[in-house]
């Protein structure tokens, strides 16, 4: 039972997504700095420069670490994902309890040929992102087939239980009747 790593394309996509967000933040901070140049105390300006440096460092390091830690697992019984930057979180969902499977891809994902799968149960949901198109489609298909198979298996077991349960009851009734008849004969 081994967790699978993402394709290299996923790391590039992670970098692009992080950089887009980082650039937006940096532009906002720089704009604040220019607009409030005269009125801003030196301490505040220092904090802003510090935050900008942290954002740059984050956008250079974080995607690589995220990529190295990102793993997913698909078996006959479960769908799981392990991800995180500092805190690594493992989320596990039994396939039997899935209610909904959603496959989606935004503009950045489409540019890299990647998709995201969101599976929902009655109590929660997990997201597995940065999956190659073919892999995502195969996973979605596998999940659909497994949900149906599990439903059929459970129905069969239920029917068998009902059948054997009835037979068991009938056997008990027959035993009782036999015992009763034996009792009557014994009395005779």
């Amino acid at each position, binding site marked *: 039972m081994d967790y699978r790593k993402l394709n290299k394309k996923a790391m590039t996509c992670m970098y692009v997504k992080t950089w887009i967000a980082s650039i937006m933040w940096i532009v906002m901070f720089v704009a604040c700095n220019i607009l409030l140049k005269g009125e801003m105390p030196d301490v505040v300006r220092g904090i802003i420069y510090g935050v900008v440096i942290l954002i740059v460092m984050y956008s250079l390091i974080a995607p690589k670490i995220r990529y190295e830690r990102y793993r997913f697992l698909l078996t006959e*019984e*479960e769908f799981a994902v392990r991800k*995180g930057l*500092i*805190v*690594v*979180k*493992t*989320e*596990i*969902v*039994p396939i*039997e*309890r899935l209610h909904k499977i959603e496959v989606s891809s935004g503009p950045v994902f489409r540019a890299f040929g990647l998709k995201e799968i969101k599976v*929902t*149960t*009655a*109590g*929660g*949901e*997990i997201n597995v992102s940065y999956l190659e198109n073919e892999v995502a489609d195969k996973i979605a298909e596998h999940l659909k087939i497994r949900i149906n198979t*599990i439903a059929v*298996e*459970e129905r*069969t*077991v*239920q029917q068998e239980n009902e059948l054997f349960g009835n037979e068991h009851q009938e056997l008990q009734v027959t035993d009782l009747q036999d015992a009763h008849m034996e009792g009557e004969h014994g009395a005779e």
Partner: protein
Amino acid sequence: MEQNKFRCHFTVILENLGGVFWFAIVMLISEMDSTVELIGLLLEGKATLLEVLAGIGIVLAIIMAVLIYNWIVWAKTWISVQDEAIVIERNLLNRKANTIGIKNISNINMEQNIFERIVGTYKIKLDTNSATTADKTDVKIVLSKNMAEQFKQQVMLRMNEECEEVLDEKVEYDVEYKAKDIIMHCIYTANPISVIFIIAFLVGCIIALNSINTGAAVLDGIINILGSVIAIVFVMGSVLHSLIRDFFVYYNFKARRKENKIYLTHGFFKKRQYTIAVDKVNAVEMVSPIFSRILGRQYVKVVCIGVGDEENENAMLLLSEKTDHMKEKLSLLLPEFVIAEPDIIKREKKSVWSTIPGAIFVFGICITTLVMINAFNEIEIEEMWIRILIATLLVGIPVLYIVSQILNFKTCGIGLGEDVLLLVQGSYSKTSTWIPYSKIQELEYSQGPILRRFGLAKGTIYILASMIDSINPTSYFKLEVFEAIHQRMLLRKGKK
């Protein structure tokens, strides 16, 4: 085949008007000065009757507008039970048809508030097995008693379930609580802060009365403190309400089990009647708030959709009981959850580091306060009781924090039963949650750098319930514990 369409009982129009009616009363009271002035002007002949009526007319117009709107909504809303669904059509400006699959209905419950008891109607509450609407009742229908019984019977027949005569008062119940038991339950489950408030209030009253007795002008003293007492009584109102609310909610509590259903009824002002399908019970919680824990008692609540959705409402199965009595009564109502307690794995001692951030915060605040009081010498606190209060807080808060952390280590644990997981949480209070592995919807566990270093993890178990009950966080345990839960939750009936 479509059945006859019907509407809610017409009294629902007045029931929905309740909020506006109270708004009008509040408006009238808050504008009492203007009203008295207006009547004075009328008596003096400085204002005409028409002018006075115009003022009252605005309030009446608002009530009328809401009344007419509610009447239209009532007149245009039709309910019908079709083959496999309940359809609620509302043909206002926007035409809307709400279809609820009968197979997906998890609960049909009945409720009666005071108004409904006067007019003889029942509110039928339908809940579906959906996580998205788990926090609220999906459909509420108000019908006359006979109609409500018929409707419930009709729906339950379609669900292939036997309809129990829950409204029959003569039925014998497995568990019944008398008024005395309910009062004791209120005491056992009282919020310690509320109790401290009440004790402080009583002590304050005694001190104030003593000071009056020693003084010469007794009457003046009483008049002086009367204003403060009225203000405090208003504050105490909410505290007292929290203490006695449960008495009215669980008044005349009765429960019984028949086949795969549990029937519950309770309530003084609002009479509630619940039917819980045993297979829809996703977990059972045994809760001991601080006083209950000290006195060795606990109450039992079930976690399922449809009961306990409303605000300030608990899906209570048993009120506060000693453990042996609780198990005895639980075996009558829900024997599926009377299980020998598995070995409890206690919270890992290595996780003691996790208490450090909280300690830094608590001690930091206390030390900063102390430093600030010393630094500003000019702020002289002359009143002795304020000094005592500050000293108590500065010593009490860190002590309470340390004790809570020690108790947390003693309380928190996890028991890996064969079919059921036992999760024990709490510090001063204690909550034991029994979750069948087959009801776990998702398992999540995480490790930060420190937890990885010690081979520990912290997790959350998700089940189908309302928002608060669906998330069950665990304490810190070895990674193997979560692996064991993982393996057990994947086992299922029918697996080949």
